[in-house]
């Protein structure tokens, strides 16, 4: 299949490339497979990433194929050594992954729900992120981790976190947040090939999303954002699922004659200062949309960068639309209230531009 729609998410230069409409979850798995085929040093660890073993034969059953079936089928192709089911010992196996990365492998760790990173936090922060620096550049840590974030699926307070801001705070770690099938392919490949520890945060609400994905192999440079929509009146900054929210808000704004530009940050650490400044220099107004809680968040960070480096271009206050400063509630209505919605973005923009 070939696309030529001008409004494709790939930006200029991609018109006419071969590709197809794919689900986020499928291209995620395909990319893992491609990277494992490409490099024998890549292997995967996590709980139930194949899932279950026959008691008599000891053969893997692939009963789960990972949370949300993310890795289904891979154990048949790569075997139990490289698709390695773990006990529920996140600190232990993230630490082992760091040790393995320090000694020549390129481990990829599935942490299941993002919330569980807290039990492995020390290994991530004190070992993975610091080893290169504190050892004076002697070594590198080519480790990739991923986990599922986000509210909206009734998983409640301990299975719905979006606290990627805390990871982005950590020097030595990189953080990427794909928002569609195109970006997850390029970012996951880039993460696995990168020689630094990279955490890929995958909002649950994206898992069944479909979108155009080029057939060709490509990576997306870590640290780069992209325009999802060009506009002149206001810049909407999204990341992970809020990029979708921003696009929906932009559609609604268009109906009332407000021409919004939408940026998808894609990477949170490092991140693309230039695209923020460039866009705000044009639109002079900005709303940052983040599902993470607001205090000391990436929304704060982008606001701070804009308030410093694009200050002279600003016509109005720098606005954030975020989740409230609270844990994630369970009940559906409460969850909806908790998450930033397109209507919240629209309301904020209208107020900002005096269009109420």
């Amino acid at each position: 299949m070939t696309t030529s729609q001008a409004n494709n998410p790939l930006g200029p230069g991609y018109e006419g490339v071969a590709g197809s409409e794919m689900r986020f979850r499928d291209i995620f798995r395909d990319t893992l497979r491609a990277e494992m085929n490409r490099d024998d040093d890549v292997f995967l660890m996590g709980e139930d990433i194949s899932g279950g073993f026959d008691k008599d034969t000891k053969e893997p059953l692939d009963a789960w194929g990972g949370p949300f079936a993310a890795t289904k089928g891979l154990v048949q192709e790569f075997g139990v050594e490289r698709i390695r089911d773990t006990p529920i010992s996140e600190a232990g196996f993230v630490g082992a992954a760091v040790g393995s990365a320090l000694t020549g492998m390129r481990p990829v760790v599935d942490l299941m729900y993002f919330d569980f990173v807290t039990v492995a936090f020390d290994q991530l922060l004190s070992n993975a992120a610091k080893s290169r620096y504190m050892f004076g550049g002697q070594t590198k840590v080519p480790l990739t981790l991923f986990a599922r974030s986000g509210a909206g699926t009734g998983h409640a307070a301990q299975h719905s976190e979006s606290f990627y801001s805390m990871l982005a705070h950590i020097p030595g770690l990189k953080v990427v947040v794909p928002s569609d099938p195109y970006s997850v392919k390029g970012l996951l490949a880039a993460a696995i090939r990168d020689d630094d520890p990279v955490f890929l945060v995958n909002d649950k609400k994206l898992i069944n999303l479909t979108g155009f994905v080029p057939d060709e192999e490509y990576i997306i440079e870590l640290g780069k954002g992209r325009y999802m929509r060009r506009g002149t009146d206001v810049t909407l900054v999204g990341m992970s699922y809020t990029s979708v929210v921003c696009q929906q808000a932009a559609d609604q704004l268009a109906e009332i004659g407000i021409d919004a530009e939408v940026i998808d940050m894609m990477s949170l650490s490092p991140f693309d200062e230039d695209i923020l400044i460039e866009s705000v220099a044009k639109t002079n107004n900005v709303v940052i949309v983040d599902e993470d809680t607001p205090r000391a968040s990436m929304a704060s960070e982008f606001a701070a960068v804009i308030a410093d480096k694009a200050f002279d271009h600003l016509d109005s206050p720098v606005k954030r639309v975020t989740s409230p400063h609270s844990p994630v509630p369970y009940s559906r209505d409460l969850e909806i209230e908790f998450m930033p919605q397109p209507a919240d973005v629209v309301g904020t923009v209208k107020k900002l531009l005096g269009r109420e």
Partner: protein
Amino acid sequence: MDISKKKLEWIYTTMYRIRRFEETMLEQTLKGNSMGVAHTSDGQEAPPTGICAHLTDKDWIGSTHRGHGHCISKGLETDKMMAEVFGKATGQCGGKGGSMHISDFSKGMLGANGIVGASIPLAVGAALTAKLKGIENESVGVSFFGDGASSQGVLHESMNLASVWKLPVIFACENNGYAEATPSWYAVSAEDIASRAEGYGMPGVVVDGMDVFAVYDAAGEAIARARAGEGPTLIEMKTYRYHGHFHADDTSKYRKPEEEEYYKKLDSIKHFERTVTKQKLMTEKKLKSIRDAIEQEMLDAVEFALNSPMPDVSTVYDDVYVNYSNPIAGLR
């Protein structure tokens, strides 16, 4: 048998209540009346029942993602539990917690917990409170956890702490053979998890977790030790969950039918019924009247939950803190 008639009735009521709550809840969840993830514990009725039979509201338990049985054993009301799973305002946590966070502090129930292993030190802390207040004899801490949770470091830290401080704690391992689809023979490097107790200077016992009397006896001994100030015990109960890991999990992908049938034959409720009728401790009539009452209770619970209102959305902003109202309604 050394159990009072009243206690026997309580045990049967509790086990049957757990069984039917789980079945009813699962049915409702599959109908779409519950909104989130739910883990059922039918099949595993004996461990919480046999243990909590020795406890009062002043004792504390810590629970897991699979917490309904613990809640019911500790005396929580099934209508408020059902309403919580349905996300209703009348739920045990006002709809904010859901299945994985049901708690009742007035009943000594420290909450179900969604992070594997995370509730273990909470029970140690409750026991520490008892020690500091000098009320170990009336307030012990029981930590329920699974075979999968035995791989979490915090269990070991907690066992060591409870042992060096001689705290009144029961480490209650419900070994149902699986953590999600992962069999314990794959993930646990010991034949019996209870064998690890020795390395922490405490007794470790393996108990048939399908036999509530066996659990009751082992728990009675451990809790008596705890109340006497003699420190913690690790009890491993070999048990089985009848349904999937969570409501949408298909066990046939990783468990053999023979295995499932084997455990169904050991069914703890049937075993109880056989035992008490054979020993003429309870009549079939009495058993039936208990079952009937529970059936009605379940109908009522579902009705209560269905008819209850959703929580007001303004409650999103409540209760983040006790002493400070949340100033940021999402910066919108």
